[in-house]
């Protein structure tokens, strides 16, 4: 069993509901965000291309963060989820730097501030500190709502199918851009989507084997698909263009020409 997620880029409406759901589910401190949404607009002479990329911890099979962790605080569960034991983490931030997907956050005092500085804690914050304490001085990241998965499995529910056992961001996603399931099961919803719609991962060249896949209507499952191979390798994301600072424009030009 290996839990994975498929994100349909064409369906994402950039509503940020997944970000909000995660914040509520895990009582995230004010300046800590586990799933993120990258939205950028790139224009060429023909059209304006708006792309939205929901990103979160890729729960890599060969996770660099687990390898570099000096205290074994980052560990890999049997179901493929990369989790962090906050009681073991000593905050060296090596994993933050080593993560090629930049999806780890160090919870510093600056980040873990009250929602309303100078005022007493809200009921939400008080409850959060009781139910889901976040330790300042440690590192955090998305864990696919493993508490929900574990509790759901204990009740005989199926993650990805039953809402109670499915990550909060997947449940909340109104356009159904997020799909959750077992990557090891060839008949699971995620395996089917990856197979049929040419799912791809970010930066496959790192060899980390992420569990978060992306599908794109233009380059994935559309009949006019012209670049299935590139889609599989992630090379298709050329259209996004990397945003250079003005001073680097000359350098950018060199690589785009």
């Amino acid at each position, binding site marked *: 069993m290996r839990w994975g997620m498929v994100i349909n880029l064409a369906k994402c409406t950039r509503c940020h509901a997944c970000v909000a759901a995660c914040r509520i589910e895990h009582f995230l401190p004010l300046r800590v965000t586990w799933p993120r949404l990258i939205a950028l607009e790139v224009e060429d002479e023909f059209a304006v291309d708006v792309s939205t990329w929901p990103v979160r911890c890729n729960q890599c099979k060969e996770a660099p963060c687990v390898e570099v962790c000096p205290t074994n605080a980052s560990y890999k569960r049997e179901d493929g989820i990369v989790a962090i034991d906050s009681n073991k*983490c000593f905050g060296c931030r090596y994993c933050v730097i080593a993560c090629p997907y930049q999806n780890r956050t160090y919870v510093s005092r600056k980040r873990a501030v009250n929602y309303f500085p100078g005022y007493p804690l809200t009921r939400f914050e008080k409850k959060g500190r009781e139910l889901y304490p976040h330790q300042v001085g440690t590192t955090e990241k998305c864990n696919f709502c493993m508490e929900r998965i574990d509790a759901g499995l204990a009740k005989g529910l199926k993650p990805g199918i039953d809402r109670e056992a499915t990550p909060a961001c997947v449940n909340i996603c109104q356009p159904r851009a997020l799909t959750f399931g077992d990557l090891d099961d060839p008949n699971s919803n995620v395996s089917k989507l990856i197979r049929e719609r040419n799912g791809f991962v970010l*930066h496959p060249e790192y060899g980390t084997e992420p569990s978060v896949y992306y599908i794109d209507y233009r380059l994935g499952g559309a009949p006019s698909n012209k670049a299935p191979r590139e889609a599989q390798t992630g090379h298709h994301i050329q259209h996004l263009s990397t945003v250079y600072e003005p001073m680097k424009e000359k350098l950018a030009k060199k690589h785009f020409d």
Partner: protein
Amino acid sequence: MKIQTARQWMVTHEWMIKPMAQTEWIVGKGVLVWLAEVFSALGTGLYIASLFFFKSAPLTAFWGLVFGWIMIAVFKLPLHLAFLGKPWRFWRAFPPFSNAWRTSWFSRGIVFTMIFLVLAAVQMVLQGLIAYNAVSEGGAHWGGVYASNWVFMIIAGIFCALTGIYCGFAMSYCKSVPFWNTGLLPIVFLIMGIADGLALLMGVGLVTGEGVIPPAESATRIILIINALLILVYLVNANYQSTVAELSVKELIVGKLAWVFWLGIVIFGIVIPFVVSVASYFTGEEASAGLLVFAIVCHTIGAFSLKYGVLKVGIYRPLLPKGTAY
């Protein structure tokens, strides 16, 4: 494709689409990592350099070992611990509490450092006995002390080198930062550390007056040339490695950090010490004490600059790049 600076909407995390420099290990509290790594290089370099003079200049070697050990134990370790978010949990990195040393260079580094500190402490005592003639040459215990010193010198020397090189490996492991992601980095750090160590040893030699300076200057000349070549190869290699590494090189050489590179690393770290050592070679006389102290100070500034520059221009590979360019 027409190139335009893209307009961004809702840039909540622009480091994922733009090449952005890492800040964790150099900004704010991250400065402690920089300082710790500098003292790591200086301490291990001084210790290793001192080992080569254990017989010809025992007193200088002894004090070199002591100062090298102090730099690691009193500066490097506490600075690293102070950087941690939860310093009192440092014991979790040690076996048997963790088996992370199998994969984590950070954990290995802590283990190397602790073993080095213990072995070096024993070796310093032995070297001290020899240096201060506590055991007379040819006496009953002389052979034993001398042999033990040799054994501890070799083992402590190996762990000292590992302590000096591990931070380079820890950084070179990071695929997310292409500028660091090269096998040359640990070698550059180690060699630069030894060059700095030799310079500091000359400072110790100035006080003890044991005639360490001429051989140390000869070694410095060679090591500085090797070091300059290594840095050059490292930068050229990074320049061809990837676009992000190229950006790092440009940032270091012609960007905002050019002063750190040209002034700190090149002029203070390499050129001035090299000129001083070459001048003494051609004049056939030892450089004056004042000039030597100046060269040592310049060398040390170079050590601080090298680590600062490398840490500061560690630019992340963007998450959503042009696929093949990065």
